[in-house]
Structure formats: structure tokens, C-alpha cells
């Protein structure tokens, strides 16, 4: 770290999703994968957050800190993706983009049907849940990227573009379904503006744009903050997320068994679909894993804000508890390694 630093070949490059991580090694079996994930500082920090809430600790993240960390994480992901994009042929993008759009259209419809038919939810509640599960959770995406990095598994640089593309359509579709099925809903146009101008899309897309225009040289200048510090900041953020998720767990009894099962089964189904479509679209092992995770994740930033405005009849306890209290921890702890295992299996049989 000093001035006289010796030959630097081994240094992790700062701006790449294709990490040549010195820690990298490919674990062979799924149990080992799981252990690796569960004992990572990120997942452990999430567990600590849960514990903090369970023991009623007075530990509380200032809201300004939470907001600052999320601004940082979104911008950082965008910047790195953009810098990567600046050296990627854009022709590689269209197939995965189509796969993403397909996911964004199909999954909310499937969720809605399931929740109405078998779950007997009201139109408003079913549509609200469909919006959340069709959209994507940026933090889960980030966790997947980070896990791939820890495994030394290359991931396409344009993935953040896909996140921006997956975030919107499902919410719009779910809201449209709700309109058809009921009257007296809130303002759809306001809700759509809320999503497009929402900070998650703005920061992701803005970061992509800055990273793309200023290129790898530009990113290099700001790498100590936006690249090197990424995982450490993620640890802090997941500590907070643990506290939030644990608070949600208190409402678990209110949401009923069906939603509990839905919160675990639906991600697995959507995750498999995502891995499959991603692989078909030519994504690498790591890329397909990440797309699967994206499909499996439930939004809890963009969707709740839009749904609260456009569908005030829906009960926030239901969608927040399912997305934050059930699906997020599930994906973080078990889902991601599972989608990776599936992707590995797919890619092994394919080649």
C-alpha cells in the first residue's frame, strides 16, 4: 500500500466485473458454495442486523446513512457497468435484453394469476405483489455480482443495463392489470413518473452513462471510492437491511402461510426461468446466474413507492413483508448459491 510497492501484477483490477480475484477458487460442490456464501462478511452482517433487532438493540442507522449508502451502491454499480460497456460490442447486448424484457412481462402476469387463483388475494393485493416480484431488487443484484466476484466467475459488464430494463415493465403491467380489475385507483401517470424518475433508475442509468462516457480511464480516477470500497460499504448496508428485514418478520404471522410459501417458491421458479433464458440468450455462467437472481428478486424500493401511489387499496404489510422479510433473506442466503448451481449445471450440460 506504500510508495515502494513491488510489481503489481497481482493487484485486482479495479474496474472489472471479470475479476482476477486472488481469492478466487471454484468450489466443487453445492454445500461448499453455500458455506462460502453464508460465511461471507456480507451475509454475516445481514445476520447481525437481524440479531440487533431481535435483542431490541438501540443500534439504529441514521436515515441519512441508509440513503447515502444506497446512492453510493447504485451509482457505483452503474459506473462500473458503464466503464465495462465502453469496451463491449453492443451487439452482444440485444439477446440478453430481449430475455430480460420477456421476464419483465411474463413474471408479473404469472404471479398475479397465481395469487388470485390459488391465494385468493384481492385484485389490489395480488397486483401489488405481482409488481414487486416482477420487478428487481438492486441490492439482491449487487449481492449476486459480489458473490460471483468472490468466486472469480466473470460476469458481463452490461448487467446493470438489464437491471434498469427489468425494473420498470413489471410494475407498469401489474398496475394496468389492477386498473382493468377495479375502479378508484390512484394516478397511473404519477406512478410511472415515480418509477422512471425514481432514484434507483436514475442512479443506475446515470452511472452507466458517466462510466460509458468517461471510460476505464475515468473510472480509474475514482476507483478507490467506487470500486475498492464497494464490498465494505455493502457490508454496512446489509447490516441495516438485516435490521429492516427483521422488523418485517414481526408481521409474518399476519401475512398467512400462502404468502410465506409464495415468497420462497416463486423466487426459485423465477430464478430458474431467469437462468434458463439468460443461458439461451448467450450469457456466461456468471451472467446467467445474475440474471436468474434478478428475476428471482422482489423490488422493495421502486415498487413500493409506485404501488403506494397508484394502488393505495393494497395492504403494504403484505408486499413489504413478503419482499423484504421473506424473499430478500432467502435469496441472499440460499437463492444466489442455488441459482449459481443451476447455472453451472446448465452450462456444463450445454458444453
Amino acid at each position, binding site marked *: 500500500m506504500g510508495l515502494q510497492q513491488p510489481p503489481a501484477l497481482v493487484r485486482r483490477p479495479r474496474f472489472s466485473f471479470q475479476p482476477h480475484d486472488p481469492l478466487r477458487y471454484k468450489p466443487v460442490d453445492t454445500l461448499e458454495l453455500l458455506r462460502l456464501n453464508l460465511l461471507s462478511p456480507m451475509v454475516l452482517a445481514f445476520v447481525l442486523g437481524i440479531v440487533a433487532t431481535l435483542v431490541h438493540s438501540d443500534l439504529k442507522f441514521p*436515515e441519512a446513512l*441508509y*440513503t447515502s449508502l444506497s446512492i453510493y451502491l447504485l451509482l457505483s454499480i452503474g459506473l462500473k457497468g458503464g466503464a465495462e460497456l465502453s469496451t463491449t460490442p453492443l451487439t452482444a447486448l440485444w439477446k440478453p435484453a430481449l430475455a430480460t424484457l420477456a421476464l419483465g412481462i411474463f413474471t408479473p402476469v404469472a404471479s398475479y394469476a397465481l395469487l388470485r387463483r390459488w391465494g385468493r388475494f384481492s385484485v389490489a393485493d395480488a397486483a401489488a405483489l405481482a409488481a414487486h416480484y416482477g420487478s428487481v431488487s438492486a441490492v439482491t443484484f449487487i449481492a449476486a455480482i459480489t458473490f460471483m466476484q468472490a468466486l472469480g466467475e466473470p460476469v458481463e459488464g452490461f448487467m446493470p443495463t438489464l437491471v434498469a430494463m427489468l425494473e420498470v415493465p413489471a410494475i407498469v403491467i401489474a398496475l394496468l392489470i389492477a386498473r382493468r380489475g377495479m375502479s378508484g385507483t390512484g394516478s397511473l401517470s*404519477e406512478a410511472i413518473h415515480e418509477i422512471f424518475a425514481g432514484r434507483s433508475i436514475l442512479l443506475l442509468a446515470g452511472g452507466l452513462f458517466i462510466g460509458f462516457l468517461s471510460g476505464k480511464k475515468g473510472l480509474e480516477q475514482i476507483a478507490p471510492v467506487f470500486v475498492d470500497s464497494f464490498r465494505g460499504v455493502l457490508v454496512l448496508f446489509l447490516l441495516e437491511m438485516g435490521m*429492516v428485514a427483521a*422488523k*418485517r418478520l414481526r408481521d409474518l404471522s399476519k401475512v398467512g402461510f400462502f404468502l410465506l410459501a409464495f415468497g420462497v417458491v416463486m423466487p426459485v421458479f423465477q430464478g430458474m426461468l431467469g437462468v434458463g433464458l439468460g443461458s439461451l440468450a448467450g450469457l456466461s455462467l456468471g451472467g446467467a446466474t445474475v440474471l436468474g437472481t434478478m428475476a428471482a428478486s422482489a423490488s*422493495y424500493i421502486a415498487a*413500493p*413507492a409506485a404501488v*403506494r*401511489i397508484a394502488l*393505495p*387499496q393494497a395492504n*403494504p*404489510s403484505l408486499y*413489504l413483508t413478503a419482499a*423484504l422479510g421473506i424473499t430478500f433473506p432467502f435469496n441472499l442466503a440460499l437463492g444466489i448459491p442455488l441459482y449459481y448451481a443451476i447455472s453451472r449445471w446448465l452450462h456444463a450440460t450445454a458444453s
Partner: protein
Amino acid sequence: MDGSAPLDMHTVTLKLLTIVAEAVLEDRLIRDLKRLGAKGYTLTEVRGEGSRGVRSSEWEGKNIRLESVVSPLVAERILSHLAEAYFPHYAVIAYLENVEVVRGEKYT
């Protein structure tokens, strides 16, 4: 001197309208207030608990408190609108007090 005696200084008696509502309504409430005749408002970020449970974080949804000094007429107009547009589905409480305002003409 009795505590509730009137003041020598020239003040006008107006209504102080206080609305505590979930933060997601901020823009809409401000727009409505202005449209219905309020000349200004003061906004505070707060937390709270009521029939819809605790509201104190990003996800539970924080609350805001909007205060506006208005004429009784405007107060009533705003309250009717709130009752219709927000009370059914959103976490909202609203109440009025009488206040003696200096330069009260500015606010009617």
C-alpha cells in the same frame, strides 16, 4: 393578567391546520393545499404510530407534518378534500387550532 386574555398588539385570529400523513403524499398534499387557497406551509419530518401501525423508517414509510395558517374557509375546504381523497386509504390525521397571528392579513 389572565393567561388567555387578548393581546394589545394587533393580531388576527386564524386557523392553524395540522396534517400528519405518510411521506409519500408530500407532493400531492402541498399541491392540494396551494390549490385550495393556503398561502404557505411549514413541513416537519416526523415519525408516528396510529391505527395503521408504527411509521418510522424508509419502508414502513415516514410521516410528515404539514402546518398551515389559513382562514377558516380555506381550512374547511382543505379538510373536506382530505376526508374525501386521502382518509380512506392513507395514514392521515388532521386537526385545527385557533391561533393569533401577527400580520395575519398576509395569510388569508
